[in-house]
C-alpha cells in the first residue's frame, strides 16, 4: 500500500474485524449452544454465556449418532476422493499438455464442459451406473444384439451385474473426475519450461519417468492445494452419500448428523445436535491448519 495513515489503518482493521466477526459468529454460537443443557439451549433468547455441560453433550452426541465409525467412513471417503482427484487430474493434464494426438483439444474442452455438469445434475444416471456398473455394457450388448446372439448359441442369458451401493468404491469413484483439478494442473504444467522437458529427454528419461521424477516433485504445492480443497469438498458431501448408502454402517458423519436433529414431537435437543456438528467440523479444520502453508503456496506462487 502506498499510504499508511493512522486513520486508514483504523478503517482497514475495522473492515477486517467486521469480516472476522461475520465468519466466526456462527461457530461461536454453535460452540456455546453445545455447552448448554436442554433447558438453557431452548431459552429465548439463548444465553451467550457458555454453560457447563459441554463434555456431557459431546459424549451423548458421539454415542447417539455412533460418530466413531461414521467419522472413519467420512475420512476414508474424503481422503480417497482427494487422492483420486489429485492423481487423475495430474495424469489427465500431463496427457493434454505433453502429448500431441488427434482430438487433444476436443478432449480438453469436453473435460472443461463438465464444470457445467455437477454431480447434482447427473445424479440419476450416475446412481444407475453405480447401482450396476456393467449396465452400460449390458445396454450396448442388448442394442447390438450380441446378448441375443450369445443366448442363441450357448443358451446362457447374459445379465451383467456389479453393484457398488454401500461400498467405499461407490462412495468415492463417481466423485473423482474433476475438471477444476485438470485445469489447475494444466496451467501449472504450462509454466514448466520446455528446456526442462528437453533436458530430461536428453538425460534419457521417458515420459512416465519425467512425470514421476520431475513433474510430480515440482507440483507438490499444487498437489497439497488441490488435495486440501478436495478433501474439504468431499467431507462436506451430503447428497451423494445419502443416496448410495442405504445401509447405515456405510453412512458418513455428515449424513449421520441428521440423526441428531430433533424430530417433530421429540425433545428439542439442539445442544446435542450442536455438539455433534462441532465434532464433524473438527477434522476438516485440522486438515486446513496442517496444510495451510503448502496450500497457500500452491495457489499463489510459482516457485522459480
Amino acid at each position: 500500500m502506498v499510504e499508511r495513515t493512522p486513520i486508514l489503518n483504523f478503517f482497514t482493521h475495522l473492515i477486517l474485524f467486521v469480516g472476522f466477526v461475520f465468519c466466526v459468529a456462527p461457530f461461536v454460537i454453535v460452540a456455546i449452544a453445545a455447552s448448554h443443557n436442554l433447558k438453557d439451549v431452548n431459552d429465548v433468547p439463548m444465553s451467550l454465556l457458555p454453560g457447563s455441560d459441554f463434555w456431557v453433550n459431546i459424549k451423548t452426541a458421539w454415542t447417539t449418532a455412533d460418530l466413531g465409525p461414521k467419522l472413519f467412513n467420512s475420512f476414508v471417503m474424503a481422503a480417497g476422493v482427494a487422492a483420486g482427484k489429485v492423481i487423475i487430474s495430474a495424469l489427465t493434464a500431463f496427457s493434454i499438455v505433453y502429448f500431441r494426438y488427434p482430438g487433444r483439444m476436443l478432449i480438453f474442452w469436453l473435460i472443461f464442459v463438465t464444470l457445467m455438469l455437477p454431480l447434482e445434475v447427473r445424479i440419476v444416471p450416475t446412481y444407475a451406473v453405480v447401482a450396476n456398473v456393467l449396465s452400460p455394457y449390458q445396454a450396448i450388448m442388448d442394442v447390438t444384439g450380441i446378448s441375443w446372439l450369445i443366448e442363441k448359441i450357448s443358451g446362457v442369458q447374459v445379465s451383467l451385474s456389479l453393484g457398488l451401493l454401500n461400498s467405499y468404491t461407490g462412495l468415492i469413484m463417481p466423485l473423482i473426475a474433476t475438471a477444476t483439478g485438470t485445469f489447475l494442473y494444466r496451467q501449472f504444467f504450462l509454466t514448466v519450461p520446455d528446456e526442462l522437458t528437453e533436458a530430461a529427454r536428453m538425460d534419457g528419461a521417458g515420459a512416465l519417468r519425467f512425470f514421476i521424477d520431475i513433474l510430480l516433485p515440482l507440483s507438490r504445492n499444487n498437489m497439497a492445494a488441490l488435495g486440501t480443497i478436495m478433501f474439504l469438498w468431499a467431507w462436506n458431501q451430503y447428497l451423494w452419500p445419502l443416496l448410495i448408502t442405504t445401509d447405515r454402517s456405510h453412512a458418513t458423519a455428515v449424513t449421520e448428523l441428521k440423526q441428531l436433529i430433533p424430530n417433530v414431537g421429540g425433545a428439542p435437543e439442539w445442544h446435542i445436535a450442536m455438539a455433534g456438528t462441532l465434532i464433524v467440523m473438527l477434522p476438516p479444520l485440522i486438515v486446513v491448519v496442517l496444510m495451510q502453508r503448502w496450500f497457500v503456496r500452491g495457489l499463489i506462487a510459482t516457485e522459480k
Partner: protein
Amino acid sequence: MASITIRDVRKSYAKIEVVHGVNLDIASGEFVVILGPSGCGKSTLLRMIAGLEEISDGTIAIDGAVVNKLEPRERGCAMVFQNYALYPHMSVAQNIGYSLKVAGVPAAERVQRIQAVARILELEHLLDRKPMALSGGQRQRVAMGRAMIREPKVFLFDEPLSNLDAKLRVQMRSEIRKLHRRLSATSVFVTHDQVEAMTLADRLVVMNGGRVEQVGTPAQVYSRPASRFVATFVGAPAMNMLEGTVTLEGLSLLGGSRRLAVSRAGLPVGSKVAVGIRPEAVRMVAPGTPGALAATVDLVEELGAGRVVYVDLDGAPFSVVTSETVHPEPGSAIGLQFAESDLHFFSSETGSRLDVFKASVPEPAL
C-alpha cells in the same frame, strides 16, 4: 568420439521451411561453432542433431549411422541449454547424476562418477546445494557436468554463455575450451556472439536465413568472407561496404562521387559490385594525400587500447579502427588509405564473393 554427417537437411514448420538443405561434415573430436543472427536456423539445426526436433528431409548420421528416427537418448549426445535447465528440486549431485540414475547405474558407481565430474568442474563443495542457491556461473558448470557425466559421443551447446555477465562469459569460454582439449569429444556450439565463435571454434559455420553461408577456420572466415553477409556479420566493428561500379580506370564509388584506381582483373566494365574494407585495414592520413579518399570525422569512440573513428564519406557510414595515438577532432577533414589487397569484392546482385584479388597480388601503391 564421433563424426557427424549432415546431408541436405531441411526443417519445415507446417508449410514454412526454416532450414533449407544444410550439408555439413564434422570430424571426430572437432569443435565446430555455428554462428548466425537469431532466427537463422542454427538452434533448429542443433536440436535436429540432438533429436529434439524432427528432421523434415535429409539425413543426419553420427559415426556413419543415420539417427533420424532415434530418440535423443539413443543418439549418444549430451546438451547444455541456454537457461541451464537444471531440475530445481534436485541437488547438484542429483542433477549431475540423473541420467545415470535413469540408465540404472548402481548407486556406488554413480557417486564415484559424480565425484569425478565435480572435481573437474570444481563443484565438490556445492554437491548438496539446490540450483536456486547457486550463482549463474556455478549453474552453468552444473549444466556442463550433467552433460559430461554421460561421457557422450557428441557435446551440443545451445548458446550456453548468453545468460552470463561479460566477465564470467570470458572465463567460461576458456573453461569450455580447456574441457574440450581434455575430453576431445566432438562438440557443436551454437552462438550469435562472434567473439565467442572466433575464440572457440576449430571450424566456423556461418548461417543466415536457414542456409550455410560459409564453413571454414575462424581465420579463413575473417580474411576471406564468402559472402557480403559473412563479411558484415563477422568482425566488430562491421566491415565497411561501399556500392560501386567497375569502370575502365578502376572503380567508381558512391554513385560516381569517388573514384579508386585499382586493377579490375577480370571484372567486366559496368558491373555493379559492393566493395568491402575492414575498419582495421584502413589508415588515416593527412587530408589531401594523393590516392587517399577524403572524409570528415563524425565521432570518435575511445576503447583504451585504440579507438574507433566513424567518418562521413559523402553520407555513407564508414569506420576506422586505429591504435595509433592520433586523436582526430570531430568535424576535421582526413584522408583514408588502404591496400588494394585488403579490398573484398561482392556481387551487388547475389552478395557472393567475387574473387578478383588473390592474396598473392603484390600490393600496389594507391
